[in-house]
């Protein structure tokens, strides 16, 4: 009982926590109240702060990207790794400085000072101590660092935690302003950074100043799509283009579910399917007025459909019980045949293919096209922000130090297939990897020290699709992106960094409504219950949020289209 005590105490202590970036009066120097930064970026300010865009054309992919609407470009696909990686950076970027960098890592941490780190330091010309921290607990670790003002020289802060880390506030205080070094044509000094699409740079701009260095940028950022077991459905003669409406999905549910044999058609799909009803990401503009997604009738229709799906028994019971961790094993074992998953490389990758084939030989992941629920309107899916991976430099670095680190970032952002890219992602040939059939394959040393994603979190080139050893995945992914490139659109406030005050941020999160929504699509609550929750949300802060967004963002800064 004593041990549980301690753990409980920590957890309930966490529940009374005094905030992400607290400054207890007794122990830190509070020098005047910093101005609360709320608002967004102005058009002219953005234009001045954003870097120019100069795509890299040295290395040609087998499957070139396909343009969709404005600002939409599918990821390039590579079926082979370039045989002779060319160098894009001449000389050594660094000048011998000493720095520490912190990145999140979902996995085992390589030992400090290992051979890969040493080789990288030599190639970079700096003494860069990369110290990964546990990704699963990153959102507890970072607030303590910022509270004690102990940020390292270079830190990676995933954008999905911006509200938790209070990026808006940090930007003004602990993070370095990079506008003087990168805006407009100044970025030509760093050609690889200039090859990162402008839309991605937008996600690092706060208050008209540039702070973040983007990584893993993509021209077709989507939260997720609806996948299915292509091998199983092909065998039944069902193909993706036969599914064009919500009714088609429901029929699939009936046809594919066989509870007695332990097979259910669906896993959780709400998060990736609700856009099919035309529900916006969060806001919509109707006749110049802001409308929140909770207020749209399409939202309730989508909810009702999912409620019926769950109560009809077509959704796997473990999914209804909230077990997301085992969604993939269920999929691999064929216990579910349709699941929602991260788009692009998130779910469609070599590891997935290998796991799937180990469970069921002949496994093949497929994805349904973006649909419109009624089957007649134009299919639409909103884009997500161009990147969530941004790194920042510490504001107490001197200008020469910032320039040195930007040169290092330039090296790290070298395009796929270049010599630098090979070094960053695979290590030294012969030591950390060998070329097997033209594919860089990790050695034991490489597996321990290189496979953990450390440097790419600091800066990396735009994403490509490449799955050596599982080319079918590359082809499937690229084909899907190309087929659906025209069906995506930019939502209201796309890529805009809006710094909300605390009260507004809470209203935006709408936790109580989200919980009721989840209960509804798990079949436990009716749509009428959700409506009641929404009414409560509106009067409890939702309407005020809408007004605030209208006054402070929509009127002043537009919709970010």
């Amino acid at each position, binding site marked *: 009982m004593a041990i549980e005590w301690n753990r*409980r105490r920590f957890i309930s202590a966490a*529940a*009374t926590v*005094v905030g992400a970036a607290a*400054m207890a009066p007794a122990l830190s120097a509070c020098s005047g109240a910093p101005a*609360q930064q709320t608002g967004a970026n102005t058009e002219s300010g953005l234009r001045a702060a954003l870097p120019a865009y100069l795509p890299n054309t040295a290395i040609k992919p087998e499957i070139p990207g396909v343009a969709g609407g404005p600002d939409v470009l599918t990821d390039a696909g590579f079926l082979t790794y370039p045989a002779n990686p060319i160098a894009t950076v001449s000389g050594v970027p660094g000048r011998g400085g000493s720095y520490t960098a912190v990145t999140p890592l979902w996995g085992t941490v390589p030992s400090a000072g290992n051979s890969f780190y040493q080789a990288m330091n030599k190639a970079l010309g700096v003494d860069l101590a990369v110290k990964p921290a546990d990704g699963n607990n990153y959102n507890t670790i970072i607030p303590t660092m910022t509270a004690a003002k102990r940020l390292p020289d270079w830190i990676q802060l995933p954008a999905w935690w911006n*509200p938790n880390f209070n990026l808006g506030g940090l930007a003004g205080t602990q993070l370095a302003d990079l506008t003087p070094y990168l805006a407009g044509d100044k970025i030509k000094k760093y050609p690889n950074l200039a090859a990162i699409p402008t839309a991605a740079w937008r996600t690092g701009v706060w208050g008209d100043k540039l702070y973040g260095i983007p990584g893993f940028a993509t021209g077709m950022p989507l939260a997720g799509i609806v996948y299915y077991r292509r091998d199983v459905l092909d065998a039944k003669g069902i193909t993706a283009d036969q599914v064009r409406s919500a009714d088609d999905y429901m029929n699939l549910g009936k046809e594919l579910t066989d509870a007695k044999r332990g097979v259910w058609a669906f896993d959780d799909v709400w998060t990736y399917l609700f856009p099919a009803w035309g529900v916006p990401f969060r806001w919509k503009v109707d006749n110049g007025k802001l409308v929140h997604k909770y207020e749209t009738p399409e939202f309730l229709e989508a909810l009702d459909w999912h409620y019926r799906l769950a109560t009809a028994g077509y959704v796997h019971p473990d999914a209804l*019980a909230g077990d997301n961790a085992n969604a993939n094993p269920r999929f691999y074992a064929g216990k579910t045949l349709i699941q929602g998953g991260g788009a692009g490389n998130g779910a469609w990758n070599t590891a997935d293919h290998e796991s799937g084939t180990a469970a069921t030989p002949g496994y093949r992941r497929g994805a349904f096209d973006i649909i419109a629920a009624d089957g007649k309107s134009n299919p639409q899916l909103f884009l997500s922000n161009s990147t969530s991976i941004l790194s920042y430099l510490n504001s107490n670095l001197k200008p020469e130090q910032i320039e040195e680190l930007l040169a290092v970032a330039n090296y790290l952002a070298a395009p796929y297939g270049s010599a630098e890219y090979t070094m960053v992602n695979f290590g030294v040939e012969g030591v950390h990897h060998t070329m097997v059939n033209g594919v860089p394959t990790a050695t034991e040393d490489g597996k321990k020290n290189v496979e953990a994603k450390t440097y790419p979190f600091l800066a990396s080139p735009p994403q490509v699709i490449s799955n050596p050893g599982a080319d079918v995945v590359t082809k499937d992914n690229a084909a899907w992106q190309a087929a659906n490139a025209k069906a995506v659109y930019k939502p209201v406030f796309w890529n805009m960094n809006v710094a909300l005050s605390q009260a507004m941020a809470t209203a935006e*999160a709408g936790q109580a409504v989200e919980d009721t929504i989840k209960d509804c699509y*798990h079949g436990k609550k009716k749509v009428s219950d959700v409506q009641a929750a929404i009414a409560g949300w509106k009067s409890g802060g939702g309407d005020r949020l809408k007004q605030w967004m209208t006054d402070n963002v929509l009127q002043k800064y537009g919709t970010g289209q």
Partner: protein
Amino acid sequence: MSTAVPRRAAAPSRRNWRFRLRRDRSLLLMTLPAVVLLIVFNYVPLSGLVTAFQEYDPLVGIRYSEWVGLDQFSRLFTDSLFWGSLKNTLYLSFVQLILFFPIPIALALLLNTVLSERLRNFIQSVVYLPHFFSWVLAVTIFQQMLGGAGALNQFLRSHDLGTWDVMTDPGTFALLVTSQAIWKEAGWGIIVFLAALAAINTEQYEAAAVDGAGRFRRMWHITLPGLRGVIMLMLVLRLGNALTVGFEQFLVQRDAVGHDAADVLDTFSFYYGIATGNYSYGAAAGLFKSVISLLLIWGANRLAHAFGEDGLYRK
């Protein structure tokens, strides 16, 4: 456990405080390290509690955050979700008190009657292991066994016996949760009682048996009184902690049964407090819980005194 006699003669305390101080100085010295540690690491950080009276904004810090007095509390007390979670907490606490609290005691007593030492040691060593599973693992195991697609239901389904959705039924949630707690914690809970049982002089049993007392009379008159002190201590602590029924266990199952049934005070503070950036709100809920818990433990202690027991501290 309660046979200690007050030290010395009962001299009037006021007049002799200097005397008592001198007499007890070694005792006070002994408490010093613990007290110093607690002051430094528990009392000094208490300054964080002021945020419950503010509209705390981490951007601005405690010193400059706006003071709102009791606003957070009035918001709290008009929030139906708060009352819902409080109700759940008390209900679950009550169920656990009735169903869970006696089990480690009963198990310890039962285990004590096992003759073979090897068997007893084996059972002891095995039965406490689930304590070390995380709640995530524990619930996953329960889901695998009792979930909609789990072993039990697959069996029922294949014999056309319908299904038993115990893992997602909010109506039986209290029983489910208590069963989980029993499975996970009862084994660990017997340890303290075993230590207490070991301290009972067995000659008393022999003497009682010789006098003609049967099995149950011996238990009633010797064993249970021997355990009384520890049981009372545990009971008082449990009552004082009526508002704490768990956190991780409920967080993990929130989605399965719906948040109406699964939200308890700690998950409420977490979800509608920090997780949404509503720090002051969460702090207010936490402060409320702390104050009530202190009242509860004081009350439980008085109750113990009324039963002639020491409880937490003597009068």
